């Protein structure tokens, strides 16, 4: 039997049972659509996060207090470590491979303007941080070293905070209360949308004000270092470690009370986490593909039983076992392949919908990707599932005895 004839015979059989064919392929459609959507969204999210991280520049190294750990930094776990201080900042500034150092402290407060109140997180750092973190203002101007030196209570509002407290009123020059202290708004950050490095929901103030007046501490929560791009990040990390060990009187590396992370490492971590998450979710979505495949096997077995006399007839007039096997395999592969194609289109539509929702309603500037690898994988997987789940019913059909098959009622 020619492959063309086998294909025509198979498709004709499927067309005669349109509703059943459509329902049978539904499982594959949903499975493929899920895989496509998850992989596409995963890739888009990864690109977005990497883009955000990279927007800070890959020449940034952050230093957190606490011993190096594979888990989250000590500060995140609520452990207060007081080892990073002004002396460290001064020493690091002396290092030739380092361009600038920005110390940071953070806290939580209730911000109020008139009758409007909201709980916010504030960050305090030296003005060099504006440049280091590519922070742009939509209104007003950043505070200066002079403001920090004079302990001026000035703040810059995140775009969302400004909107929440002031609505459409221009907040620059207005007075805002943070707990019991009154601050003057000097600027508003340009909106960045939702994201890991967005300051939309934060307030930023001079380091001296945050550290001494708001918290009353003499240590820092984090140091950010921008290094000279002519140097290798590993070299700079070693230099930082050496300086801090000396300052903290640490003799061996395993006793270190600080953790140094370069942006390059952060990128790798983000990539590995988002990739692992994407593949994990895709693996879960694959379960629906398997369920769809079993559905196809079930329906194909029913079809083989229903068409026993047809099989008997075909064998009587000259069809070989291979001809019958081929016909039923083509039917199952056709079902899964068409299901896969519909799934890709359906998945693409879902991704498009997610794009509209995220960009329009969440104001996130995502660039959605539709990875060709996911499409290729979907086609391969759907074809393979047709082959795997269609093989057993096809074998059953091809092995039927023509006499018994012709007598089947």
């Amino acid at each position, binding site marked *: *039997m*020619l492959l*063309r*004839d086998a294909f025509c*015979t198979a498709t*004709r059989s499927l067309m*005669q049972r349109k509703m059943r064919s459509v329902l049978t392929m539904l499982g594959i459609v949903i499975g493929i659509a899920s895989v496509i959507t998850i992989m596409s969204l995963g890739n888009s999210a990864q690109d977005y996060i990497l883009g955000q991280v990279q927007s800070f520049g890959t020449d940034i190294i952050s230093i957190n207090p606490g011993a190096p750990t594979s888990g989250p930094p000590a500060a995140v776990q609520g452990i207060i470590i007081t080892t990073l201080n002004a002396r460290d900042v001064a020493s690091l500034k002396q290092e030739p491979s380092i361009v600038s150092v920005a110390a940071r402290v953070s806290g939580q407060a209730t911000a109020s303007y008139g009758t409007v109140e909201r709980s916010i997180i504030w960050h305090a750092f030296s003005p060099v941080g504006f440049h280091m973190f590519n922070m742009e203002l939509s209104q007003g101007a950043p505070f200066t070293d002079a403001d920090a030196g004079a302990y001026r209570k000035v703040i810059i509002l995140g775009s969302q905070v400004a909107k929440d407290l002031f609505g459409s009123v221009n907040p620059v020059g207005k007075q805002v209360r943070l707990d019991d202290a009154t601050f003057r708004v000097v600027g508003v950050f340009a909106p960045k949308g939702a994201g890991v490095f967005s300051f939309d929901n934060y307030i930023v103030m001079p380091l001296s004000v945050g550290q001494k007046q708001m918290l009353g501490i003499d240590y820092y929560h984090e140091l950010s270092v921008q290094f000279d791009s002519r140097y290798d990040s590993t070299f700079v990390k070693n230099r930082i470690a050496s300086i801090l060990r000396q300052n903290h009187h640490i003799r061996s590396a395993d006793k270190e009370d600080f953790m140094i992370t370069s942006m390059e490492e952060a990128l790798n971590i983000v990539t590995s986490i988002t990739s692992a998450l994407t593949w994990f979710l895709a693996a879960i979505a694959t379960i629906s593909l398997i369920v769809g495949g079993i559905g196809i096997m079930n329906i194909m077995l029913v079809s083989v039983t229903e068409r026993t*006399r*047809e099989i*008997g*007839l*075909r*064998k*009587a*007039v*000259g*069809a*070989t*076992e291979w*001809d019958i096997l081929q016909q039923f395999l083509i039917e199952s592969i056709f079902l899964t392949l068409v299901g896969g194609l519909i799934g890709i289109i359906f998945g693409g539509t879902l991704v498009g919908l997610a794009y509209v929702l995220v960009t329009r309603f969440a104001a996130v500037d995502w660039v959605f990707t539709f990875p060709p690898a996911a499409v290729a994988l979907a086609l391969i997987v759907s074809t393979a599932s047709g082959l795997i789940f269609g093989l057993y019913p096809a074998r059953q059909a091809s092995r039927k005895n*023509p*006499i018994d098959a*012709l007598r089947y009622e």
Partner: protein
Amino acid sequence: MIEVHNLEKEYVDEEMPTRALRGVTFSIAKGEFVSIMGPSGSGKSTLLQILSFLDRPTGGAYTFQNKSIDDMSDQELAHVRNKDMGFVFQSFNLLSRMSVYDNVEIPLLYSTIPPQKRQSLVGEAVRSVGLEEKLYVEAGKLSGGQKQRVAIARALVADPNVLFADEPTGNLDSASGLQIMEILEKLHEKGRTIILVTHETQTAEFANRIIRVRDGMIESDVLVTRTAHTRPVVLK
């Protein structure tokens, strides 16, 4: 053309062997019209299944066109069934949701005949049974007699040397049955070898030779001579 010698067929069902054929011997020459008759359970259908390569004997020898069935693989048997044999069944065995054309074309799908030649062969076969106007009608919508004519067209389309008909009038009224037998008679007159299984005497008498089978053995093997005015009428 067909030679069987001491043919045996034994079925083992629930460990009780049943001998369906017990040493059947005969030969059929090219162009003969043979009726195999016998009561229910006599072994006539088993004999037809073996003659038509749908089953293998458990003993004896069967030679078809000088080739022994024992020397042929299942694939070769399928090839011979496709090329040299045509089948007409009591229950038509048409694919009811497919058109007359698609039904008749089925044997050609498994042949080496190129697709471009198939259309004319199908048209010719359907014309030979007088159903050219029903070519694209769904087989399920035809009457019983028309269905059997489609089945005959399907059996003829690959131009086989032998036509096997298993109770072809069994599911038809007498008028339709007569039509079918007249078609088979014409095919025989054109030189086609026809082997018919029936339990109806009048149907069997369309043949020029009647082999009677009883208890798996040949009871009689007689030639029928008849003139036009003694032509049998199928009655039900």
